[in-house]
């Protein structure tokens, strides 16, 4: 294995690969068993670094708290059923929009290529289009791996958010009353961003994805305006 691949694998293990480099590496990883094995080995080496953290006493009451949460099966509270209705409508609208964008933007080619690969059969790719009057060309692509419960969000031409606000990704899973939090992010001046994400709760059969503009740090349930939406 050449040094460049070893370097990419090392950076990937520590979460340091970004942008197209990360996408290309992950694509290769899916079909390269030797590379996959190297990443597994480097994961183990990196995990060993955790041993160097100074020991800190674990609060004894935390054990009961965690076990109680596991017992109750509750991780995220979704008390307001009414919130589901607009999101359902939004997800349906996204069906049409996403398809059109995929056709127009050349994503169809990528999707077709990915769908041909059995290893990526579980990958879901969604196009999110703009709901912003001041940025109609803003768009995003979500590459979602349900099996691994992680994905990558790529954003284009999205206006830079104010300092006191964050964009927040949401995944629509019909099993939950409200969309599942996919994490917060902000965009730079050029309006582009590539960021990996993991939802706060397990998502199965995602029906859509949305990005809202929220207060800094994010919220547990969407409160702000939806800026991008798609499926």
């Amino acid at each position, binding site marked *: 294995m050449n*040094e460049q691949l*070893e*370097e990419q694998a*090392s*950076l990937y*293990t*520590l*979460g*340091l690969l*970004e942008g197209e480099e990360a996408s290309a590496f992950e694509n290769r990883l899916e079909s390269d068993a030797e590379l996959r*094995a*190297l990443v*597994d*080995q*480097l*994961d*183990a*080496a*990196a*995990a*060993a*670094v*955790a*041993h*160097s*953290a*100074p*020991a*800190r006493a*674990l*609060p004894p009451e*935390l*054990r009961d*708290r*965690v*076990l109680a*949460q*596991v*017992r109750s099966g509750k*991780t995220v509270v979704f008390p307001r059923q009414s919130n589901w209705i607009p999101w359902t409508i939004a997800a349906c609208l996204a069906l049409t929009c996403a398809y059109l964008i995929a056709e127009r933007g050349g994503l169809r080619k990528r999707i077709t290529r990915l769908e041909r690969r059995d290893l990526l059969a579980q990958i879901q790719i969604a196009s999110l289009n703009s709901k912003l009057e001041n940025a109609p060309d803003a768009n995003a692509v979500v590459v979602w791996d349900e*099996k*691994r*419960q992680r994905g990558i969000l790529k954003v284009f031409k999205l206006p830079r958010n104010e*300092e006191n606000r*964050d964009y927040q990704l949401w995944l629509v899973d019909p099993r939950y009353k409200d969309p599942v939090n996919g*994490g*917060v992010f*902000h965009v730079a001046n050029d309006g582009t961003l590539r960021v990996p994400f*993991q939802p*706060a*709760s*397990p998502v199965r059969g995602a029906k859509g994805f949305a990005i809202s503009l929220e207060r*800094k*740090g*994010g919220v547990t349930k969407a409160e702000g305006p939806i800026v991008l939406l798609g499926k």
Partner: protein
Amino acid sequence: MHPSSFPRDSAASQKGSRSEVRAPNEVDAELVRQMRTGDERAFATFYDRFAPGLFSMIYAIVRDQKESEDVLQEALVQMWKRSATYDASRSSLFTWAVMISRHKAIDHLRSRQRQSRLHGAVASESNAVPAFAAADQADNALARSDEQERVRAALAQLGEAQREAIDLAFFAGLTQTQISERLGAPLGTVKARIRRGLLALREVLGGIST
């Protein structure tokens, strides 16, 4: 070197040769099998085995007691719910748990950083994160497993520059560019240090068990 509260990571020591087929960790696999059936006692065992070490690691990243507790709780519940994603043929339970917890902690750290109030503090915190070898003192009296001792020795064998680069990536959650700026080293040099450091760590850890 600081004492670690992680248990022995048997699978990590099985990863020596690149061509070697790693034997699955049967203890790990059985524990996860029980967790997948909803066995809360198995999860309690998992908690007792890993939570103390994970908490220490998360605190080294987040540097806040309450937030570290919340991150650990979130990570553990995720592990419980997603125990089906654990593949014993690819990693030890230790590696799996560390990677999930670190990801949560880094996410939390970056989210907090985005709130800007900690911009200044981050620099000092990342300077204060544990250095592999430099902090290796005074804790010998505390009990450690042989494996942990050997892992620490392996970390200490890395060059200072390699340790520093990996340290900033692992605990401070910095990007390549940020690490480069922090160390005052070219980006290519930083990448090379991380590559050499992790590969060396892999080799040293692999050699331990043989």
